[in-house]
């Protein structure tokens, strides 16, 4: 699992870390019972305040995505209903897309149509 942060993203950093872990769980790059990096290692890697990483890990634990083995570290919870996590991820993508659409004065239907058109176009190109 790689965790990286987008400097353009203005959401709180702990939220971004939580979402990166959720993404890794859904994609499978973080498998059941796989260890997460230690708070210290991740803080150093991301140049983030260690308290922020701890906050993200607490949040992940509260949501049941990870569990803590005392004195050993943090691990991915096996048997996660990844349907739930997938929906949460999709919800986030939708939120960002809607935000961007609204900013550009576009309505929901216009956005959905544009996504469909774009995807059809891409599929046609790929099949050529």
């Amino acid at each position, binding site marked *: 699992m790689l965790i990286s942060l987008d400097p353009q993203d*203005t959401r709180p950093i702990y939220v971004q870390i939580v979402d990166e872990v959720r993404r890794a769980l859904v994609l499978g790059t973080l498998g059941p019972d796989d260890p997460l990096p230690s708070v210290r290692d991740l*803080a150093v890697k*991301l*140049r*983030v305040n*260690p308290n922020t990483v701890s906050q993200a890990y607490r949040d992940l634990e509260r949501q049941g995505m990870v569990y803590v083995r005392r004195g050993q570290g943090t691990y991915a919870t096996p048997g996660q209903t990844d349907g739930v996590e997938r929906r949460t991820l999709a919800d986030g993508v939708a939120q960002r897309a809607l935000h961007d659409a*609204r900013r550009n004065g576009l309505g929901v239907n216009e956005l959905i149509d544009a996504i469909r058109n774009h995807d059809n176009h891409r599929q046609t190109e790929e099949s050529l």
Partner: protein
Amino acid sequence: MTSPLPTRLRDGDLAVETRGLTKRFGDQVALNDVSLQVPVGAVYLLVGPNGAGKSTTLKVLLDLMRADQGTAEVFGLSTRERAPEVRANVGYVPERPDWGYGWMRVGRLLEHHALYYPTWDASYAEKLVQKFELRLERKMGVLSKGQARRVHLTMALAHRPPVLLLDEPTDGLDPLMRDETFGVLADHLAESQTTVVLSTHHVEEVERLADHIGVLRSGELRAQMSRADLDAGLRRYRVEVPDKWPGVASLNGKVLRRVTAPREVQWTVWGPETEIVQKLSSAGGTVREVVPLSLLDATLALLNPND
């Protein structure tokens, strides 16, 4: 109803606290009634233009300079009456190292410095020497600004003090070394319970580290708050407005910036989001976007001189 910028934190244990610090140089006011509150374990970013009083504040905390009025405490110890104890608990990187050790070699200086600090961690110091690529045989006087800064960072960190005062800690460092420095700081914070007060002109570099902010302008503490409060209370609103829009009377918040263009206005406001959106909408505007600000943009807005 407006929301003034907060200048006092909510209750909690403070590592560093000043009350009503005032300092004049001749007829120039360097600090005017500054009451800083730095919670234990915070990474507190002190921002402001040159001459705003950042370095003066840090110097008062070490009793390197004395205020004309007001008090300063580090862990409850008066910096004026208990200066040696305070200094023993503080690691300091000065903005301009101007003391006379130019003839000393880096290695000798570190040994010399270690003698003053019973908590000096020699193996950690060695690690820092490697990370910062210090050349121990060189004389302090011939070092570049960036090289000297790295020596000072090593001296400040290696005794693992409970408080770090870092005045422009990455000034003069190349991009790689700046990045390395923040890695070292993150590692340090994970390892040792430390409170940091940091001033920098490169605010974007501490976006992910700072959890408190104090904004100094012309010697006055204009705002002071936790990052969580800043993130919750400051927004940029982008609004589409009709032709010849009369404007909005009051926004229920403190307007820090307002940029107008034909049929479009952008506000940066400190205040309650829901009420502000409501005001803008009922005045005939279409709110297109409400976004939180990066730490750098927030700083620029809070320092806005047009007010």
